[in-house]
């Protein structure tokens, strides 16, 4: 058949005379044409090839680049997957010494920031768009004036791990008489560094080696969640908690904390303490340990109450037993406590074994004292030029408004950033910064581990990195690439001996993403006991009478607010509370009852000085009664962009009101305690507003036992999480196993799996619940964001969720995290009810979901006992054209009315099979890694071919710890879970009703 649609116009000339006959002829032709048009390609697809194809590029084949993650300042190594010139996935670099293949949820999601169309595209001068030339000229002129009159120049930044940037800032500031570089972290660890200055004579952050510790005591440090370097710590933590070997090397982890953090939820022993009790516990630990060491403290430390005395004594026993192989960490930003903790580690001889001060970390360099001094200078009007980079002081510091007003007097305030944020709008000049995926950068996050960041896409916005800007202001117009190369040749190349030529060293580092060089040595002096007495005295003055504190902490998803514009992270359930798109005031049930508050009631938290925030409350298990905890990072300006993030329909409620913000900024409650920022705030008054705000959560029932409204089976325990204590596990590897039910099948025959049979094993002992896998899955599989309202209607779409269960309550609270995804059942209940065969079993054990067959009856979801199927209720908005560039071209973008669920990353399976076939070899174990497995910082997920007897997954399947969730249903899931082993005694095991909380 000829192609009628593409004939040119002159071929279709109408006859001059339009007779009845020709009308009929034409009418007939039109009719036939209409019919034919139905079977014609109606919209022509254009295919525009390259003019000159880059040598390394084959359209359709991904390219991988080694780079460095910039989600926080931990400096994890990433591999950037690019398809046809655009990055579509970040994965952990398995060889990188810091992250060792893991990548957290924040790191994975930072990809979306690249495709944010609201990033600034041009520099702003006094709020209006300008050009780089004009802005440079104006700033240079101002700087010249400041230089002449010896004005004060201040560079205020977050932690910068880039040696090149730090060096350039130093050089730039050295051209002024009065100039300083002030560093602060919005969630500060300054006290930790200050304490080491007092005790070891060097203001440095040591590297904590959790893998070497057999006893870990954490005082409110959420090291598996947000503290310093969570991926590095998770890897190390898991390494130190292995069930291999006889007897297994498995650390004992005690967590003293006031709210329930991810770290606390994984601890073997969790002690909830109020902030004051925490200080006293630290002192008491030191005094008991000093006694054990046969010495005496200069200051008398009061006894604790009976409960805490028992816990600390036990703790001291363990620490002393594992002297030199133990570790005490503390996440409180208070120098006195940190000094005491240093003294504890010193008594235990942990310096040099589990704490490395020689190879120190640069992951947090903030100095609150410097910041306080700068703020005083600003208030007194003594600053001539202020440059702000990477932080948002008018948002994340207390008294931001007053500060902004004081800044009005600064002649030259300049901000570097991605958007016109709270700070930038008060600045005369705003200079847009590129995203980390479109620029050159370097990083030395831990002394001696240097990494490179390389651009993986043509810049989407014309931005200019800070280092180039400084170079231009200093009159040497150099590109970031040249600047980094020059700096590396000058200072870093010398610190290694392996490579002879710099070019070789550079190329190898660029290829690997990192290099190991000699760390810069610092003069660490021996422990100075003088500081301890003073600190102990300070701590002992804290009155136990104080009641009600607010604890402010970094959000597990958007951190200090820097990722508030990232929809993936906003919709990632908090690993503990499971709340999305909001921050809340969490408190214990007891406290809520005493205040007569119910879930979602909005309260006003009043602090003297007119500092007030309004938040809905959330009743949280494991919370200390005297503490209300609030997450920082919410309430960012411009987050009303998510007004329409959810689908539009009749009853839709916007995720955020126009002109509003997602959540509430809690930074106004922050408090200066001397020269450090305090995240525990006392003297808070809680006032009811009488209103209620809906909180969207992804998990509404938290227990392993049936709720009390189920008649006879009320309180019955479901076979979901198998648990054992370490002692029982050592005695019997299958300890805690659920009774094996008789699996009679009504099916005449089982499926045969002649080739591969895909399966997965998830080790619950390893899983920390960090949720990196959830984001990894979302990115890989083009899962849309549905918005707060849809989540509240239980319509979230993430294929993989992490169920978090509580057992018992109060002191004996135990928490379990369980990643839950499609179990790819052998006898899948969903398959039998689909009327159109849209979900069917394949020859490799996958439960397939065929989108183009699905008509959306949702019978399958109703019949799934694991509730892992998700329905596309709408055509979800996927952002604008730029945001859609993040979509993975190997996965179908699902339409409205279609069911979807985990596919075991079948696109990766297919690709790996084809690659193996093309290379003429059999598929090897490890060729296929599911997205969730690849990114897991705890290596909790193993995926592979169960039919291959030598594969890791088939070995794990035969492990006595492996069980199936709800095995008694006889659906024969392909996912095995491994018993959650805790290093604590008294786990009530197996059968019998566990007490419901």
């Amino acid at each position, binding site marked *: 058949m000829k*192609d009628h649609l593409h004939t040119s116009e002159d071929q279709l000339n109408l006859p001059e005379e339009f007779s009845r006959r020709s009308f009929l002829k034409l009418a007939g032709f039109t009719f036939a044409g209409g019919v034919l048009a139905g*079977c014609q390609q109606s919209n022509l697809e254009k295919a*525009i090839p390259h*003019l000159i194809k880059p040598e390394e590029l084959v359209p*359709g*084949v991904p390219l991988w680049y080694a780079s460095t993650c910039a989600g926080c300042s931990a400096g994890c190594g990433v591999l950037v997957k690019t398809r046809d010139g655009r990055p579509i996935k970040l994965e952990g670099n398995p060889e990188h010494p810091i992250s060792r293949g893991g990548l957290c949820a924040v790191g994975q999601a930072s990809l979306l920031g690249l495709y944010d169309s609201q990033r600034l595209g041009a520099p702003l001068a006094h709020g209006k768009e300008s050009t780089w030339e004009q802005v440079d000229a104006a700033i240079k002129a101002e700087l010249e004036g400041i230089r002449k009159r010896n004005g004060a120049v201040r560079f205020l930044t977050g932690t910068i791990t880039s040696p090149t940037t730090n060096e350039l800032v130093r050089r730039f500031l050295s051209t002024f008489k009065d100039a300083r570089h002030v560093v602060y972290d919005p969630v500060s660890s300054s006290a930790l560094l200050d304490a080491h200055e007092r005790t070891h004579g060097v203001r440095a952050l040591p590297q904590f080696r959790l893998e070497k510790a057999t006893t870990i005591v954490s005082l409110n440090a959420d090291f598996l969640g947000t503290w310093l370097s969570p991926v590095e710590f998770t890897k190390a933590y898991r390494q130190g908690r292995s069930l291999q070997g006889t007897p297994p090397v498995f650390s004992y982890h005690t967590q003293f904390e006031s709210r329930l953090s991810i770290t606390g939820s994984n601890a073997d022993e969790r002690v909830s303490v109020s902030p004051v009790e925490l200080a006293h516990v630290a002192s008491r630990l030191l005094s008991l340990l000093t006694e054990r060491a046969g010495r005496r403290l200069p200051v008398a430390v009061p006894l604790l109450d009976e409960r805490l005395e028992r816990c600390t004594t036990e703790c001291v026993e363990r620490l002393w037993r594992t002297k030199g192989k133990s570790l005490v960490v503390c996440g409180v930003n208070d120098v006195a406590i940190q000094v005491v903790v240093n003294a504890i580690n010193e008594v235990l001889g942990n310096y040099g074994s589990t704490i490395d001060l020689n190879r120190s970390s640069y992951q947090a360099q903030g100095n609150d004292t410097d910041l306080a001094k700068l703020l005083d200078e600003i208030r007194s009007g003594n600053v001539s030029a202020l440059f702000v980079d990477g932080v948002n002081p008018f948002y994340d510091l207390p008294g931001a408004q007053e500060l902004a007003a004081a800044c009005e007097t600064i002649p030259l305030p300049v901000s570097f950033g991605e958007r016109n944020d709270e700070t930038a709008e008060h600045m005369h000049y705003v200079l847009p910064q590129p995203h980390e995926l479109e620029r050159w950068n370097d990083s030395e996050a831990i002394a001696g581990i240097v990494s490179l960041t390389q651009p993986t896409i043509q810049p989407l916005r014309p931005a200019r990195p800070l280092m180039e800007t400084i170079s231009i202001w200093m009159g040497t117009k150099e590109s970031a690439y040249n600047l980094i190369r020059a700096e590396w040749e000058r200072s870093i190349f010398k610190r290694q001996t392996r490579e002879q030529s710099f070019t070789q060293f550079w190329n190898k580092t660029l290829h690997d993403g990192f290099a190991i060089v000699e760390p810069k040595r610092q003069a660490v002096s021996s422990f100075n006991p003088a500081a301890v007495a003073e600190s102990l005295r300070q701590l002992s003055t804290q009155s136990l009478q104080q009641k009600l504190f607010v604890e402010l902490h970094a959000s597990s998803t958007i951190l200090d607010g820097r990722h508030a514009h990232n929809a993936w992270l906003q919709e990632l359930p908090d690993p503990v509370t499971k709340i999305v798109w909001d921050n809340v005031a969490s408190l214990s049930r007891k406290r809520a009852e005493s205040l007569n508050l119910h879930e979602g009631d909005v309260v006003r938290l009043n602090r003297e000085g007119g500092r007030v925030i309004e938040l809905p409350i959330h009743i949280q298990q494991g919370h200390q009664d005297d503490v209300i905890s609030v997450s920082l990072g919410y309430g960012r300006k411009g987050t009303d962009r998510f007004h329409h993030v959810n689908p539009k329909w009749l009853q839709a409620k916007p995720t955020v009101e126009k002109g509003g913000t997602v959540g509430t900024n809690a930074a106004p409650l922050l408090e200066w305690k001397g020269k450090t920022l305090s995240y525990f705030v006392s003297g808070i008054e809680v006032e009811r507003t009488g209103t209620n705000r809906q909180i969207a959560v992804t998990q509404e029932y938290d227990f392993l036992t049936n709720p009390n409204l189920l008649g006879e089976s009320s309180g019955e325990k479901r076979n979901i999480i198998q648990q054992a204590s370490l002692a029982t596990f050592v005695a019997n590897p299958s300890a805690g196993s659920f009774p094996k039910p008789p699996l009679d099948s009504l099916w005449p025959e089982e499926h045969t799996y002649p080739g591969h049979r895909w399966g997965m094993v998830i080790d619950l002992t390893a899983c920390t619940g960090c949720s990196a896998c959830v984001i990894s899955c979302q990115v890989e599989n083009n899962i849309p964001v549905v918005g707060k309202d849809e989540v509240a209607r239980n319509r979230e779409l993430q294929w993989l969720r992490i169920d978090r269960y509580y057992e018992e309550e109060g002191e004996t609270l135990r928490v379990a995290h369980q990643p839950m995804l499609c179990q790819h059942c052998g006898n899948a209940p969903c398959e039998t009810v689909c009327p159109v065969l849209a979900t069917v079993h394949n020859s490799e054990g996958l439960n397939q979901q065929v989108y*183009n067959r699905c008509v959306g009856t949702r019978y399958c979801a109703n019949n799934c006992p694991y509730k892992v199927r998700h329905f596309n209720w709408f055509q979800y908005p996927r952002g604008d054209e730029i945001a859609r560039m993040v979509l993975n071209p190997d996965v179908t973008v699902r339409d409205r009315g279609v069911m979807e669920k985990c*596919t075991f990353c079948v696109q990766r399976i297919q*690709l790996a099979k084809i690659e193996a076939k*093309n290379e003429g070899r059999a598929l090897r174990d490890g060729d296929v890694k599911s997205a969730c497995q690849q990114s897991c910082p705890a290596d909790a997920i193993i995926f592979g071919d169960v039919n291959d007897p030598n594969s890791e997954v088939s070995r794990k399947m035969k492990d006595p710890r492996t069980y199936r969730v709800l095995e008694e249903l006889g659906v024969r899931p392909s996912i095995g879970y491994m018993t959650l082993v805790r290093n604590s005694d008294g786990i009530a095991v197996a059968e019998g009703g566990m007490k419901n909380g």
Partner: protein
Amino acid sequence: MKLLNNRMTTVVLLVAVVLTMSVFFTSFTSNMRLPDNHQGFEPVQPIAYSHRLHAGELGIDCLHCHGGAEQSRTAGIPPASTCMNCHQFVTASILSVREEDKLAAKESRPPRKIVSPDLQKLYRAVGLNEMGERDISLTAEGIEWIRVHSLPSFVYFNHSAHVNSGVACQTCHGNVETMERVRQVSDLSMGWCVNCHRDANANGINAKPVNASIDCDACHH
């Protein structure tokens, strides 16, 4: 009244029968087929590139230009630089060049450079002038080819898996080397794919046994 009713019924029935028959008739005579079946699609391309000449007469291997077929999901359309490898020298058909040579000899002048109209388009696309010479005032424009073989967005076909298993290009694309303008020969329907996979599993490809999956998610994911 009753008569009228009967007549009305007859008329309505007759019209219905005629309509149904005409629909069937049209559908058979006009090759009506399922939506999205573009068998026979033969669009006019921006440059009248002849596969008959290049692949047929000159015998250039398919993979010379469509190298992606061996390594990637997509076979790819060659970049203009691939064309220019030859066409920076070959500017017109040999016949027209010879004719010009003859004419030049007759008029006793050096022969002029002859550029065929379609190659003029190529030169413009890569930013040269119509004679294939550098001109800094011109910018490269690219060539907007019209895609002939297009699968729905929920289907994932991988060229490399097929080419490396020994499936000839012609199996799916027909005898492209005889086509002046490329035409979609197969209907690229799912039944057509699956039949071939079944056949390959039963008989192998070139007598070599293969494992051609007929699982849904081999193509739909």
